[in-house]
C-alpha cells in the first residue's frame, strides 16, 4: 500500500519536541485550560501558561538536583497533572521519562528501574515511594525519589526523598536568576532525539522498553489530529495508565492540538468524572466499551417493564437508523422522527449517563472489538472508530476513515504509514512512528524491525477487497485444526465476551480436532441475575457451577456457533464443548497480563487436566489451583467442574467432510 503524503509533520514549523510545543501553546492559547484535575471537589485547572510555569520550575529544579541529558526519569503514579508535567520537564532537561504502571508490584518495578537505570524516580505518593524504597538496594542507580503527595511523608529521609514542590521551589530560585534558562534548555533537543521509553506489558517474558523519538510521537499524533480535525476546543479524559502508549499519545495530541487534558479524581470515580467532563474525544480499549455496554444491559434489566420495552424499541430503531445517520446516508422521514424521539428518550440520556454526551470522536484499539458492541455505540450516534496500532508504531498503523467504518476491519493505513502482509500472513508496516529501538535489547530490535524499517506486528491479517485491513489474531496464536483449517481463538473469544454474563473466554483448537472453550462468568452480571431470581450463592465458584448459569452460557455459546456459521473462514471453528472455570482468571495469578490479555501458555499448563477432559468427552473433572491474594498469601481452590456439550451447526464444508 502506498504511503499517504505527510504535508505537515509538526504542529508548527520547528516544533519538533514537546517542550517546544509547550512554549508555542503558551503563545497561542495563554489562557485556555491545558489541564484539569478533579481534586478537592472541583476541577482544579491550569492554563497553558500555568502548566508551562509548573513544568519550567520543575525542570529547572530537576536540573539543579543533577539531572542531565540522557538520564532516565522513572514516573510511577496515576493520571495526575504532575506526572504529566514530569514527562515534559524531563524532556526539557534532555532526560528521558520512563512512565511505569503504578499497580505493578515491587518486583516488576524493580525490573524496570534496574533495566532503565533510572537516576530519578517521581512517585505519586507514600505507597509508591515505599515500593521504590523496598527495591532501592538492588537498584543502585536511583539517586532521588521525588514525591507528589506529601501525605505521611514526614518521617522519610529528606536527602533521598524530596517533595515535588521543594524541587519546584528550587527551580523557581534558578529562574529568578536565569529567566531564559528553560527556553535555552528546550532548544537543545531535536525531533530525532529520544523522547520517552515505554515498557510494554508483554504477553510473554519480561517487559521490553520501547524507545520512541520525538518525531515518532509528534508526527504520528499530529497527523491523526489533523485527520480528525482536533482543535483546542476538545476535551479528553486521561484515565488509562500513563505508561501505556495510548495515554501518552493523548498527551502528545493535546500538546499538538492545544486541547485540555482532564485527570480523574481517583480510579473509583472515573465514571463520575467522565460524566462531569463529557469529553469530546475519547480513547478506550474494547474491554472498556464492553464493560460499559454490559453495565448498560445489566442496569436496563432492572428497569421497569415499560422502560425496558421503550429501550428495546428505540434500540431497534437505532440499529436501523443510527448508523446510517452517522454516516450521512439518507433516512426516511418517519425514521428520522423516531430517531429524534429516541434520541430524546433513550440515546441522549444514555450517552449522557455514560459521559459520552459530547463525544465527537472515539477510538478503540488494542484488541478486536465485538461487532455488536461496535454497532451499539455507533447506532447511538457515537462516532467510534477502530484503529490498529502498537507501542512500536507510536500507536497508529491503520485507522478507519469517516464513512468507512466496518466492525470487522481496522481500517486503512493512516497518513504516512505503509502496510503490507508478508508471506506468512503477518502484517508489517513502515511509518514515521516506527520506534527507535528496544532499550538495551538489540536482539529483539533486530528481530522485530528489518533494516529498511519494516516492522513485524506479530498479528495475522489480510487486506479486504475494499482496501481495509482485517486482523484475525495474534500471528502466533493462530493455529490450525488437525483437519487443516485455520483456528483463530481470539476471534471466537471476543464473540463470547460480547455476552454480558461472560467475562472472559479462552478457546482451544490448535492441533486438535475441534474447538473447546473455558468460560469465566461476569460476577456482576450473573450476580445481578441471581439476585433477581433468588438464586443463593456464597462464592464465585458456587455461582459458576449453578446449572442455570450453565444453561445460560450454553445458549450463548450456541449463538456464537450460529454466528460463526456465516463466516466462511471460521465456520468450522464452532465450539463443541465448554466448561465454566471455578475461579476468575487473574493477573495476580499470572493468567492475564496487566492489561487483561489472556496468557495462553500459562493457562495451557495450569489447566491441562481440564483441557484434556474437554477433548476426552468427560462429564466432570477435578481441578485444584493456587490463587494469590493481594497481600501475597497463597491459597488453593479446588472443585469438580462440569463439562458441557454444545450444539454445533452444520456447514456445507462440514457436511462435505
Amino acid at each position, binding site marked *: 500500500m502506498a504511503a499517504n503524503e505527510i504535508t505537515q509533520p509538526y504542529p508548527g514549523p520547528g516544533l519538533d519536541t514537546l517542550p517546544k510545543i509547550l512554549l508555542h501553546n503558551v503563545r497561542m492559547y495563554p489562557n485556555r485550560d491545558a489541564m484539569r484535575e478533579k481534586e*478537592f471537589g472541583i476541577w482544579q485547572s491550569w492554563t497553558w501558561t500555568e502548566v508551562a510555569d509548573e513544568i519550567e520550575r520543575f525542570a529547572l529544579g530537576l536540573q539543579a538536583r543533577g539531572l542531565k541529558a540522557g538520564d532516565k526519569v522513572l514516573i510511577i503514579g496515576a493520571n495526575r497533572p504532575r506526572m504529566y508535567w514530569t514527562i515534559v520537564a524531563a524532556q526539557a532537561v534532555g532526560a528521558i521519562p520512563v512512565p511505569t504502571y503504578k499497580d505493578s508490584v515491587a518486583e516488576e518495578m524493580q525490573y524496570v528501574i534496574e533495566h532503565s537505570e533510572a537516576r530519578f524516580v517521581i512517585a505519586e505518593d507514600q505507597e509508591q515511594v515505599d515500593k521504590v524504597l523496598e527495591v532501592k538496594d538492588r537498584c543502585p542507580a536511583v539517586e532521588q525519589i521525588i514525591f507528589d503527595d506529601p501525605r505521611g511523608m514526614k*518521617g522519610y529521609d529528606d536527602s533521598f526523598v524530596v517533595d515535588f514542590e521543594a524541587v519546584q521551589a528550587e527551580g523557581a530560585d534558578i529562574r529568578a536568576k536565569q529567566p531564559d534558562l528553560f527556553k535555552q534548555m528546550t532548544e537543545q533537543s531535536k525531533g530525532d532525539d529520544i523522547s520517552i521509553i515505554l515498557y510494554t506489558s508483554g504477553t510473554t517474558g519480561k517487559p521490553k522498553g520501547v524507545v520512541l523519538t520525538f518525531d515518532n510521537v509528534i508526527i504520528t499524533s499530529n497527523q491523526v489530529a489533523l485527520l480528525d480535525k482536533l482543535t483546542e476546543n476538545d476535551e479528553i479524559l486521561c484515565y488509562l495508565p500513563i505508561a501505556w502508549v495510548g495515554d501518552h499519545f493523548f498527551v502528545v495530541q493535546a500538546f499538538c492540538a492545544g486541547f485540555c487534558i482532564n485527570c480523574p479524581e*481517583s480510579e473509583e470515580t472515573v465514571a463520575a468524572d467522565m460524566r462531569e467532563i463529557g469529553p469530546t474525544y475519547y480513547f478506550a480499549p474494547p474491554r472498556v466499551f464492553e464493560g460499559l455496554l454490559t453495565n448498560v444491559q445489566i442496569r436496563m434489566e432492572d428497569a421497569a417493564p415499560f422502560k425496558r420495552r421503550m429501550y428495546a424499541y428505540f434500540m431497534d430503531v437505532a440499529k436501523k437508523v443510527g448508523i446510517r445517520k452517522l454516516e450521512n446516508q439518507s433516512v426516511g422521514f418517519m425514521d428520522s422522527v423516531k430517531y429524534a424521539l429516541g434520541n430524546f428518550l433513550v440515546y441522549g440520556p444514555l450517552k449522557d449517563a455514560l459521559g459520552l454526551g459530547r463525544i465527537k470522536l472515539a477510538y478503540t484499539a488494542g484488541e478486536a472489538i465485538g461487532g455488536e458492541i461496535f454497532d451499539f455505540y455507533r447506532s447511538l450516534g457515537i462516532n467510534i472508530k477502530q484503529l490498529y496500532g502498537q507501542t512500536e508504531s507510536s500507536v497508529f498503523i491503520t485507522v478507519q476513515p469517516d464513512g468507512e467504518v466496518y466492525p470487522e476491519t481496522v481500517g486503512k493505513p493512516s497518513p504516512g504509514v505503509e502496510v503490507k502482509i508478508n508471506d506468512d500472513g503477518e502484517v508489517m508496516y513502515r511509518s514515521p512512528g516506527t520506534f527507535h529501538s528496544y532499550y538495551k535489547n538489540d536482539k529483539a530490535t533486530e528481530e522485530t524491525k528489518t533494516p529498511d524499517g519494516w516492522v513485524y506486528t506479530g498479528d495475522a491479517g489480510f487486506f479486504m477487497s475494499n482496501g481495509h485491513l482485517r486482523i484475525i489474531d495474534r500471528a502466533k496464536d493462530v493455529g490450525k485444526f488437525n483437519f487443516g483449517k485455520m483456528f483463530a481463538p481470539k476471534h471466537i473469544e471476543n464473540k463470547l465476551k460480547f455476552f454480558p454474563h461472560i467475562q472472559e473466554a479462552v478457546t482451544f483448537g490448535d492441533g486438535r480436532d475441534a474447538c473447546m472453550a473455558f468460560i469465566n462468568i461476569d460476577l456482576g452480571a450473573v450476580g445481578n441475575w441471581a439476585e433477581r431470581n433468588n438464586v443463593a450463592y456464597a462464592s464465585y465458584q458456587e455461582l459458576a457451577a449453578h446449572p442455570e448459569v450453565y444453561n445460560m452460557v450454553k445458549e450463548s455459546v450456541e449463538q456464537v456457533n450460529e454466528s460463526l456459521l456465516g463466516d466462511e473462514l471460521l465456520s468450522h471453528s464452532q465450539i463443541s464443548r465448554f466448561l465454566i472455570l471455578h475461579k476468575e482468571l487473574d493477573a495476580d495469578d499470572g493468567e492475564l497480563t496487566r492489561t487483561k490479555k489472556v496468557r495462553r501458555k500459562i493457562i495451557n499448563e495450569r489447566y491441562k487436566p481440564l483441557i484434556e477432559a474437554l477433548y476426552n468427552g468427560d462429564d466432570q473433572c477435578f481441578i485444584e489451583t493456587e490463587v494469590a491474594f493481594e497481600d501475597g498469601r497463597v491459597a488453593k481452590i479446588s472443585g469438580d467442574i462440569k463439562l458441557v456439550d454444545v450444539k454445533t451447526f452444520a456447514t456445507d464444508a462440514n457436511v462435505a467432510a
Partner: protein
Amino acid sequence: MSTQNNGQNDKKVMLDLKNISLSFGGVKAITDISFNIYEGEVRAIIGPNGAGKSSMLNVINGFYHPQEGEIWFNGEQRKGMKPYEIAYQGIARTFQNIALFKGMSVLDNLMTGRFTHMNKNLFYQAMWKGPAEQEEIANREFVEHIIDFLEIQSIRKTPVGRLPYGLQKRVELGRALAAQPKLLLLDEPMAGMNVEEKEDMCRFILDVNDTFGTTIALIEHDMGVVMDISDRVVVLDYGRKIGDGEPNEVRNDQTVIDAYLGVSH
C-alpha cells in the same frame, strides 16, 4: 511512627486535670483523678466498662462539670464553660455512638465542623455574595483537604445517614478535624469496626497526629491498638486512676493486669 517525632524532652503540658471528682446524684462516676496530656502526644484512656472513661471525656469537653478539681488548659484554669465555648478553645471530639448530623451531607457535616472558624454576620449571610461567600469558599477549601486526607471524596455529597458505619466514623473524625482542634478527643474510634477498618482508622489517627501535630486523647477497648498507637496510657477502674505511663509500663503493671487485663481475658 508517631513516637519518633514526639520529642520527649520538651514536654509541654497542654491539658492538666487535677483531682477531678464527678458524681451524679450521689453516684460517684469519677473520684479524685489527676493526669495530664502533653502537647503533641497520643494519650489513651483505658479501663473496663463503667470505669468512667466517657465521663472523663465529657468533663474535658465541658459537657459535665466536675464537683471538685481543677482543669487547666494551655496554662489557664477553666471555670464553668459551656461546651460550645470550649470548642472555641480548640477542643473537638468524636462520640462513641456516632453523633453525625443525619440530615446533612458529608460535606455539610464537615463544614459545620468549621463553625468556630467562621464569623460573618447575619446580614452578610443573607446577602451571600461577598464576604459570606468568600468565607464559605475559604473554609470549603480547608474541608476539602480533610476529605482528601480521609479519602472520602466519592461520598462528599452523600447524606451521612446512607453511609455504612465505618465511613460514618470516618466522617465524624473529619468533622472533628475540620475544627482544627488543638486537642482531639476520640471516644472509642474503632468500636464496631472490622480489622481492615481498624487499620485504616489507626493510620488516620497517626497521620493526624503526625501531619497536623494534633494532640489526641482517645478511649479504646482494643488493647492491641492502644498499645500500638499511644504514647502514654492512663488506666481507670471504678472511677479511680490505677495506672499511668507508657504502654510498656502499663502493660507490666500488676494492678492494671489484675484490674483490667486480667478481667478482659
